[in-house]
Every structure is written in structure tokens, then in C-alpha cells.
């Protein structure tokens, strides 16, 4: 992986092209490069400015207004949308759920993915079968994961309740997605099932670069599987572990698809997170202004975690 800083220096080649016989003169070359540089960059830049930069700036602006998405006037209300957020029980509930989601939804798939990767890596038979199997959940669209886990949780026919009933635990079985105490966690388990595939894929690939001589030395020294994995292998894949953790964590603040498909944030607001609450506020309550303030909260949380991730990675270098 390349670091942005070193690339900027590498790009200096084009900045000062070496003069050789047969070349256009340096000023002519510069003029040509400036012309084609601008020509090549402008189409992409226009699309990007119109459909990313401008709407982002507009989100900031709207978050200071009480616009309802329809009215011609957008009244400036200062910070009151942001103040409202801290007094809004539904927003606080969504935030609390989101924190649970980010913590459990990051730790679990990383640990599971790492465990799977280490198991497959330490010379299991049929490792190709397990490799394909373990990353498949990641390839599935979240809509499909949501639907199939709805079936697993189905109160009448779902496997969860069938197993519980079969084990004589009828008292425990319930409508997992309809019960406010379990809805968030039921969706979370489905999401962990999918995200583990991603963690497995990246970590398994990174294990191919582990220095085998250190592993063999530790075997001769009599280290057991866990000692070997934990103190010899894991430190060597620390950068990929950090990256997988960061990607999962940052994504956790924007989680939407799977919750929207499985519970819609319900029952009540039991499984509401910031993204689903923002969506509903903006497009079902038509509160574009307040919705934008909520969107800014998601943005700031993502940016903070991205920033922390970059710092951690710099320290690992």
C-alpha cells in the first residue's frame, strides 16, 4: 500500500521532465501538459463537484435551516437543529443503538474473521472449500442477508425457534425481530454473519505474507496453536487487522440497508440507528433541515473514526 505523501514526491518526475534531444522545448512541454492536464481532469471534476461537493456543502447549509423540502423559503434557525438533537429522545435512542452496533458489530466480525482465517491457514484439508465458504456471506447483498435472516427468525417456521422448541425451551422462543428487547441484537447477528466474510477475506489474504520461519521456530520451541497465533502471527498482520477494524467501524456509523430491510428500525424505535432515523426524518417527516443536522452527526462521527484510523496506521509504520 502506498502512502499519499510519498506519491506526491514521486509525481515530481512529470513536474520537471528531463530535457533530451528531440524533445519539445520545456516551455512548450509545460504548456501541452497544462492543457491536457486540465482537459483530462475537468470532466471528472465537474461530475464530482456537482454530485458530491455541492450536496455536502448544501447539507451543512440545510442543517442550519428549518426547511421542509417543499417550501420556497429556507429559514435560518442557527444551531437550533443541533440543540434539538440533544433533547430528542428518539435521536438519543438511535445514537445509543448505534454505539452498541459499532462496538459489537466491529469486535465480533473481526474476531470471528481472524479466527476463521487462522483455522483455514494452519493447513486444514479442503482449505479451498472453507476459503470460498467463509467469504461468501460478504459477497451477498445486505438485502438478501436481511431477507434470509428474517426467515431464520420466523416465529413459526424459523430454525431458531424450532431448535429452541425441540430442546424444550419453548419459553425462550419468540418473534425475535418483533420483540423490542431482542430486535437490535437479532439484526446485529445477521450483520455480523455478513461482515465476518469481509474480515476473513482480507485477513486470510494477509496471512499469505507471514514469515514462515518465525512460525516454524516457535513450533520447535513448543508453542501451542494459540500461543503461535497470538504472539507470532497476529503481530505480523497488525496493519491489515487495523484496516479491517477501521473499515467495519466506520461503516457501522452508516449502517442502514440491513436494519431497514429487517425491522425498519422497529418495533417502535427499538432497532433505530442514526442512519434509519435520518432517512425517516428527512423523507418521511419531510424535515430536510433537521435531517441534515442528523446527517452531519453521522458525517462527523465517521470522519473522527477515519482520522483516528489514519493516526493509528501512521504509528504502525
Amino acid at each position, binding site marked *: 500500500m502506498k502512502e499519499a505523501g510519498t506519491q506526491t514526491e514521486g509525481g515530481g518526475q512529470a513536474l520537471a521532465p528531463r530535457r533530451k534531444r528531440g524533445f519539445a522545448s520545456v516551455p512548450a512541454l509545460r504548456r501541452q501538459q497544462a492543457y491536457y492536464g486540465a482537459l483530462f481532469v475537468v470532466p471528472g471534476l465537474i461530475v464530482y463537484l456537482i454530485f458530491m461537493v455541492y450536496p455536502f456543502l448544501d447539507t451543512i447549509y440545510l442543517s442550519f435551516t428549518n426547511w421542509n423540502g417543499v417550501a420556497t423559503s429556507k429559514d435560518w434557525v442557527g444551531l437550533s437543529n443541533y440543540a434539538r438533537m440533544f433533547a430528542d429522545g428518539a435521536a438519543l435512542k438511535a445514537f445509543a443503538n448505534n454505539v452498541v452496533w459499532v462496538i459489537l458489530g466491529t469486535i465480533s466480525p473481526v474476531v470471528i474473521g481472524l479466527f476463521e482465517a487462522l483455522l483455514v491457514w494452519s493447513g486444514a484439508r479442503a482449505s479451498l472449500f472453507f476459503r470460498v465458504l467463509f467469504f461468501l456471506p460478504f459477497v451477498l447483498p445486505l*438485502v438478501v442477508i436481511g431477507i434470509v435472516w428474517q426467515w431464520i427468525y420466523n416465529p413459526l417456521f424459523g430454525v431458531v425457534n424450532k431448535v429452541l422448541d425441540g430442546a424444550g425451551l419453548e419459553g425462550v422462543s419468540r418473534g425475535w425481530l418483533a420483540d423490542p428487547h431482542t430486535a437490535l441484537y437479532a439484526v446485529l447477528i445477521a450483520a455480523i454473519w455478513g461482515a465476518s466474510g469481509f474480515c476473513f477475506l482480507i485477513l486470510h489474504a494477509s496471512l499469505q505474507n507471514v514469515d514462515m520461519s518465525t512460525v516454524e521456530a516457535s513450533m520447535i520451541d513448543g508453542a501451542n496453536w494459540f500461543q503461535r497465533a497470538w504472539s507470532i502471527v497476529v503481530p505480523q498482520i497488525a496493519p491489515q487487522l487495523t484496516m479491517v477494524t477501521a473499515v467495519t467501524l466506520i461503516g457501522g456509523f452508516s449502517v442502514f440497508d440491513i436494519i431497514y430491510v429487517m425491522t425498519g428500525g422497529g418495533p417502535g424505535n427499538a432497532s433505530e440507528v442514526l442512519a434509519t432515523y*435520518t432517512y425517516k426524518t428527512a423523507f418521511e417527516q419531510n424535515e430536510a433541515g433537521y435531517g441534515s443536522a442528523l446527517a452531519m452527526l453521522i458525517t462527523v462521527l465517521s470522519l473522527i473514526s477515519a482520522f483516528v484510523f489514519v493516526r493509528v496506521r501512521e504509528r504502525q509504520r
Partner: protein
Amino acid sequence: MMSRVVGSLARYLALAFFAALVLYPLLLIVSTAVKDPLDVTADPFALFSSVHLQNFIDAWTLGGFGGYFWNTVLITALTLIGTLALSVLAGYALARLYFPGRNIVFLVFITGLMFPFFSVMIPLFYELRDIGLLGTKVGLVLVFIAGAGGFGLPIGVFLMRSFYMDLPEELADAARVDGANEFQVFWRVMLPLSGPGVAVLAVLVFFQTWNAFIQPLLYLPGSENQVLATGLYLFASGRTQEYELIAAGSLIMVVPVVVFFLIFQRLFVRGLTAGALK
């Protein structure tokens, strides 16, 4: 010796445990997709109680998944072409052509890597409405190309720029000595070498566009324009009894991605690792 046998037995048990957890939901989709509708009413989720391939035809025609499939193919293809073309051009310019302000332009592009979709979601809706692109495939494609869906120009420019930076300058110099102008250097020398970089980007863009849900949900309402993700969601939340068609529709959506992924796994891992800022 004994402990080694016990150890490897424990590892296989652990593997089997995880394999079962991962496998069950996958089998459930396949099993339900090939179940006879009569069996579905009795017990929809008993594994492989019947084989009824007619479900795929019914899902394709009666369920409307054929239409959703072609919409998804069209949108994914247009997004791919647009993102690749614009990323190659901008990435090349930012890597190898000197023009004033290019570092700022690059910075502006890669900043987009860190912003979640929600940072642009609300104004994009009204912006698309005001310029008449709301509910059109073109509007959605432009949103994807810009990078609001995750993998668009920001990751494209980032990947292609680092790709072109690694190509030796001597290649360009040799062409310049032969009298090539800067456009010919790009078109004749650099572009034909772009395959590996473009492939990595293409895999990422395909994967994310095909599976995207919230963007088409918001910006492409209306039944005739649905893509597989939203069509599947609407179908499943509407007619909850026809599990076999939901499952068949899911497979219609999933199989192309799985096949694609099995072929291009390596490129995929490389792209995800390189784009770790996402």
C-alpha cells in the same frame, strides 16, 4: 503426539462449527428457491423437501425480476464505463501531467473517500429533482460515478493515480523523443498499459453498484425502474407468502456476483487493501 492429535481435532471441530453457521443461511436460500409452492405453504423452510425449477421462470416473469435484472445490468454497465473513463483521465493527469493546482484537485478528490453517503443524501434528492434527473437511470448513474455510493471517482482517481505513478517515465520520454505529443503519450503508450489498474477498479465498482440499495431506493422510485436490490425488497415486503419466488429472485441477484467474485477474487482483495481509506 497425543496433544497434537487432540489439537488438530479441536481445530477441525471449530472449522466445522463455523462452516455450519455460514452454510445454513446459504442452503436456506437455495432450498427455498427450488421448493414446490405447495410445500412452501406447509413448511417454507424445511431444507430441500422438493425440487421445482419453475420458480426461476416465475420469478423472472411473474415476479418481474427479469426487468429488475436488466435495469441493474444497464445501470452497472453505465456506472462502470463512466467511472473508469473519468478516473483514468483524471488519475493520469494528476499523476503525470503538470498543471497548476493539481495537488489541490487531488486533495479534493480523495477527501471524498472519507465522507459517508449520508453527508450528501438529502440535498442530492432535491438537486436531482430540480434538474429533472430524479427517478431516471442517468441520475442514479451520475450519483454512483461521483462516488456517493462508496466506490466512484474518489477511489478511482486514487487508484489510477497511484497506478500511473508506478509506470516508468522512460516510456513517456522514449515516445517524446520520437516526436509524440502529450496526448499521444497518453493514448498510445500509457493507456494500453492500464489494464491491471483498470481491472482492480472495475471489480470494486461492479460489486458495489450491483449490490447498492439505499441510492436506488431514494433516487429511482417507480416500479418500472427498480433494480434487483430494491425490487427484491419491495417484493419481499409486499407479498410475504411467496417465499419461493423471493428466494429465486435472491439467487438471480446473487449468482452473477458470486461467479464474478470467484473469478476476480485476487483483484478484489488488492483493490480493497489499496483503498483502505474507505
